[in-house]
């Protein structure tokens, strides 16, 4: 029997990222492998068991908390899609002032029941088995994960900097053009999307597991931005992951 999969939407900036998937081309192939039993809007969840639940968006209200616990109970594998779900993403940034307070709120278990919550990663509420990083979520990544799950193999993990893919594509480094880029400490896997279009990397796929953040800040300030600005840039997508 094909795995039964469902998609659920929580708080994310642009709503449904899956719309961005090139579904016309890939949907048929995907449907060969899985049965999609629920799609985000179906709020009154019907099935009582999912093989794989895909979660978009961050957790930012008490009702979200309840709902995600419920989904987790009914799912074998739970996957966070996109940076909002993976680490709170840009949503986290908006709510987070001052950062210390928020950190306490995020990780202090008792504080879930506040009326408004800061944007939290799904993983700070329930166990997440796999993640597809990026803002928006990377399509190829999503497909790779799906295939890996179908083949019963572990999903690819990305812990090499964006610079690797950027170099392999022989892009001109933005630092050589007087810009400041977060590529050196950001998890790759996006094929260096932004630098390939002349945009600096904003770190949307999260920070590497063992980064030299002081070194990164020094690079940024040496290239003409203030320490404050450098920190802001680094926190944009990663305020839940990085301590500065």
């Amino acid at each position, binding site marked *: 029997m094909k795995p039964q999969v469902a998609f659920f939407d929580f708080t994310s900036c642009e709503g449904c990222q899956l719309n961005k998937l090139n579904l016309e081309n890939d949907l048929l192939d995907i449907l060969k492998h899985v049965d999609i039993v629920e799609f985000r809007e179906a709020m009154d969840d019907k099935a009582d068991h999912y093989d794989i639940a895909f979660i978009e968006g961050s957790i930012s209200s008490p009702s979200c908390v309840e709902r995600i616990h419920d989904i987790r109970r009914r799912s074998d594998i739970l996957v966070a899609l996109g940076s909002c779900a993976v680490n709170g993403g840009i949503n986290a940034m908006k709510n987070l002032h001052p950062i210390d307070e928020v950190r306490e709120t995020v990780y202090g278990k008792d504080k879930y029941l506040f009326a408004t919550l800061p944007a939290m990663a799904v993983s700070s509420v329930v166990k997440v088995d796999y993640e597809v990083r990026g803002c928006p979520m990377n399509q190829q990544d999503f497909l790779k994960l799906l295939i890996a799950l179908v*083949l*019963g*193999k*572990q999903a690819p993990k990305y812990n090499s900097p964006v610079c690797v893919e950027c170099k392999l594509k022989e892009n001109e480094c933005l630092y050589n053009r007087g810009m400041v880029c977060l590529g050196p400490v950001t998890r790759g896997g996006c094929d260096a999307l932004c630098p390939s279009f002349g945009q600096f990397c904003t770190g949307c796929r999260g920070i590497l597991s063992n980064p030299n953040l002081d070194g990164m800040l020094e690079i940024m300030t040496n290239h003409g931005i203030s320490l404050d600005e450098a920190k802001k840039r680094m926190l944009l997508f990663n305020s839940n992951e990085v301590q500065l």
Partner: protein
Amino acid sequence: MKRLQDVKAKEARDLYYPTMCKVVGARQITDLEKWYELQMPAGQDLGHEPGQFVEVSAFGIGEAPISISSSPSKKGSFELCIRQVGTLTNVLKRYEQGDMIGIRGPFGKGYPIEKLLGKDILIIAGGIGLVPLRSLINYVLDNRKDFGRLIILYGAKSPAELLFKEEIAIWETRDDVELHITVDQPDESWTGNTGVITTLIPGLDLNLNTTIAAITGPPIMYKFVIMSLKSKQLNDDQIYVSLERRMKCGVGKCGHCQINGVYCCQDGPVFNYTDIKPLEEAL
């Protein structure tokens, strides 16, 4: 320096194509380890030395270096024993008799058998380190008169993690094998030695001039075992270690397995201790 003009076209080979081998036997022997018996196409032999390894692959998953666990004296098939720790090894767990597995190799340097002839062989295996050493043990047993004593020290975390239990039972009954087993965490039924493997060494009565030690185990084990052996007055050149490093190509190209300037996949994985002693990254 090797120059292009010195290379003949037929010398340049496709280094990365596997040979598809058939699984003719497969058994999960502990919670984490599975044993496989494989056959090359057309009844060929793998043609390995004890201590060598192969690159095992499953298409769509990847490749991993795995020691050859059977002795070259065993003809017609060869054996592997794989611990499930990551992507490929967990997928291989599902492989059963009749499935096909890709194999490249054998690669690397094994034990220099000609230097071991006539010597007392002291095997020191920690955990999964028994897998490659089993090839040497069985080689010695199959050519028993060519060697002196065979002393086997084997340590595992717990009795449940002991590998090749049936074979060990046979070794135990032979009077030409001196077998000492220890576990770190005994269970109720365990009556043997407890403690780390180094505790077995002080009590050994070794013939100093004729003993060759072969050590394989987790990275932290080597330093302590070598210290104990040194206190038994063994010389550096009487000690062989088999080292593990990340590997990708197995043929000295990809760079992953370097230990300082040495390639573990080509110059090892079996090294004489004198050769790696000066290398800071070795132990």
